[in-house]
């Protein structure tokens, strides 16, 4: 039932949870200390309830550790759920012989991605939290991918079947995610460009981009036969152009967009402030009610 993989990842999950708990408690606010002289009760509650109530110390670290635990647990569960792809399970089927690990058939680019992720992670540590998160995501994805291939590589004795098995499981996840990322990048780049150029240029840029898209599609469609490489080239060029101008625009920054009415902004800000107060701290409502009792 419980394969070694399951136990390993469950171990990770448990470790993550415990680590998260201690991290939260230790980084907690010593000011409100009431246990052992340095620990705040709030934090115990917060850490134990996954932040449900009470508070935790350093949020970022806590969240990362909890996420680590959740992901590990998820992987562990997947391991059992997919036990068909698990070597032990297969060995049961194959009267006890473990299929030997097979070398993967396809080129594996994941280690590189993982390395890039690690780099990003480190860069993020010193620069900006967002970059850190990106790095983290890359690393986690890599780990997941590698793991999947690790099972798949031993799933059966047949490397091609193994590759197919891996693809069967992973492609439905990978491909749409990549597609969505692609779209998101396109959307963000386009909007950055519009924001960087002047108002009337934004119109022209929109016209031009869409005209290019449409016309090149038309051209390809009209042609009887097109060389694959040409298509790939055009697509790549387009993508790179979009990405490059997007990045460039983001770096250049937005054009000046002033508030329409000076006096208005004041009003709106104060209004938002009010709302912010009402919403920012939902807990306070219930606090109020409690003190009512």
């Amino acid at each position, binding site marked *: 039932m419980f394969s070694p993989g399951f136990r390993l990842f469950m171990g990770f999950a448990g470790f993550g949870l415990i680590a998260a708990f201690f991290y939260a408690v230790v980084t907690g606010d010593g000011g409100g200390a009431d246990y052992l002289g340095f620990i705040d009760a709030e934090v115990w509650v917060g850490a134990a309830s*996954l*932040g*449900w109530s009470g508070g935790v110390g350093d949020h970022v670290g806590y*969240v990362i550790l909890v996420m680590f635990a*959740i992901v590990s647990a998820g992987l562990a569960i997947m391991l059992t*759920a*997919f036990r*068909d*792809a698990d070597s032990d399970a*297969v060995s049961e*089927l194959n009267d006890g012989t473990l299929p030997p690990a097979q070398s993967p058939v396809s080129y594996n680019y994941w280690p590189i991605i993982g390395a890039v992720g690690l780099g990003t992670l480190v860069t993020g540590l010193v620069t900006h939290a967002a970059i850190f998160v990106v790095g983290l995501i890359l690393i986690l994805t890599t780990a997941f991918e590698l793991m999947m291939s690790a099972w798949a590589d031993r*799933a*059966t*004795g*047949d*490397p*091609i*079947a193994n590759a*197919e*098995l891996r693809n*069967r*499981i992973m492609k*439905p*996840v990978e491909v749409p995610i990549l597609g969505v990322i692609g779209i998101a990048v396109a959307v963000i780049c386009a909007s950055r460009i519009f924001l960087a150029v002047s108002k009337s240029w934004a119109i022209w840029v929109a016209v031009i981009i869409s005209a290019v898209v449409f016309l090149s599609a038309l051209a390809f469609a009209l042609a009887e036969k097109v060389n694959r490489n040409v298509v790939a080239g055009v697509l790549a060029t387009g993508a790179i152009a979009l990405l490059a101008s997007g990045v460039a625009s983001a770096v250049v920054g937005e054009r000046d967009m002033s508030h329409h009415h000076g006096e208005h902004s004041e009003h709106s800000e104060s*209004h*938002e402030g009010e*709302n*912010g107060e*009402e*919403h920012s701290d*939902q807990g306070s*409502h*219930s606090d*109020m*009610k*409690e003190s009512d009792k």
Partner: protein
Amino acid sequence: MTIVESEETPLELESAGGQPPAEKPLGAFTRPQGGNGWKDWLFTVDHKKIGIMYGAAGLLFFVIGGIYALFMRLQLSRPGNSILSAETYNQVFTMHGVVMVFLAAIPLGAAFANYLIPLQIGARDVAFPRLNAFSFWVFLGGGLFLLSSMFIGGWWENSPDGGWFAYSPNTGVLFSPSKGIDFFAIGLQITGIASLVGAINLIVTVLNMRAPGMTLMKMPILTWMLFIVQMLLLFAMPVISVALFLLTFDRLFGANFFNVAEGADPLLWQHLFWIFGHPEVYVLILPSFGVISEIIPTFSRKPIFGYPFMVFSGIAIGFMGWGVWAHHMFASGVGPVAVAAFSVSTMFIAVPTGVKILNWLATMWGGRIRFTTPMLYATAVVAMFTIGGLSGVTHSLAAADSQQTDTYYIVAHFHYVIFGGIILGFFGGFYFWWPKIFGYFLSEKIGKSSFWVMVIGFNLTFGPMHILGLQGMSRRIQTYSSGQGFDLWNLVATIGAFMIAIATAMFIGNVIVSRKAFKAGKTPAPGPDPWDARSLEWMTASPVPEHNFDETIHVEKQDEFWHRKWGKNEEGQVVRRATAEEVAHDGSNTNVHLPSPSYWPLVAAIGLPIIGYGLIYNLLLCVLGGLFVLGGLYGWVFEPVDDPNADNHDHGDGQDSYAELETAEVTNASEDTTIE
């Protein structure tokens, strides 16, 4: 009529190495194998199981809603009572309304729809079986989510307290700072998704899966009414969704939709709510109309009187229901012209409803009426609903309503139509279809006595409310003073409410007792057609086998089954052609391919309440919920059909799953999850 769901055939490993293919298909997404206990229910996609689950959940929620009602009645039994504090009372009546309407009455209707529509049209299942399961689990999740508001964050701290129609701005954060209204808005949003998805599914089923020869005008009235209900839901649900979105955005993101300080109009909410709300009351009543339209002809031994008129009056009610919503707003100040227009349009709803009442009476007229328990209930509906309808007509005169609105006179009206029309009808339906569904009879003795306790209790409860209302007792008041002349009738109403509770308990007792008796062999098995009924669901074994019918039924007439049993001799007298046993299928055909159970509807559905908690408490949970939903959807798309031979039918071969998924839920789910 096989329903096949996925495009992916299970992975077969026959490539180069020549390893023998594994016994079981390999791969991540195997489908559950049915047949063992609870799993059978959790992962089922069988419309009958889903229907039963809807019914069980609906009844459970009915009892819960009823317990709320009992507490209210206790509080109101004497002037100046203090059993419930004002705060709790407000939460209790809100939850009573919400639970009864959204978690009891709608799902009980859905139970009949799910169980009976495919059977009545001679189909093997609904058009999108997995979607059906999804819709049930979403409903259940939403319902439990709503109820959990009672416990989460403190006992009775965060229950909704704005009334079931939740008028703004009283439901804004400013006036309702607890999280109750958030639970209300998100919970109803979730159950709304369930209703919408279910409606799409059933509409397609009715339009597209009728047995050969069953034209629309040969469908049983029940199917017709349920079909109209689904149409109403289809168009009403998006409206309430929008209203709830606006409310949620106001509360969680500081939007201004109901922020009067920014110039918002509180009446916007009322319009949106009642544009949904009025069609909604017909959503509640039409299934019951359908139920008694099946019961009355059966026990009168006559065909329904004026079939086309029954159908068209149902359609007319459905249509007209859209043009009357502002009769709930006569006092709001929408202006005399609007008030007059809506007043008049409301009055005319009496016409198609009257047609129905009189047709039922005409069906009974000259019949040979067997007053079994179901028939008693059906007759009571005709009598009791009329009372509620008539008080409805008295509200429709806007001038008169300006005295009546928001008094107990209204409470009397709608409980007469709701309890007298819907709940009594549904109980009749339970007794009627119980042998078909569960394969044993409910005791007539207990049935009849509980019927009388219920009807008398019901009249004692809600009859006096007419008087209370006309004497000026306002709705939604936690208490009243002894000088106001309300004492006596409130006490009577409270006594009546407890009689209803006793009757409900008797029904539950009946289920248990009768089942035992049957198991002990003391009562006979019902056979396929215990009542000499008319429609196709009686043409198969009881309880209905998993595949419904052994073979496709070719329909020639309305009431096909009856016509196969009975014919006319030369003198025009009805004579038997065949017995029910001869005509009906015995359920022995085991060679029918059925859609396999699936994990994913449940997985995807679980995500929604989690997202709901996330919106209220901690956005991290939204991520988790989103993962459930997405994961569920992925699994849904990529899970294989477990039977490789199954994709030889045209509307199968995998497109179902794909389009189902992509059209219906992704849109809904993403609307839910992408609230930024």
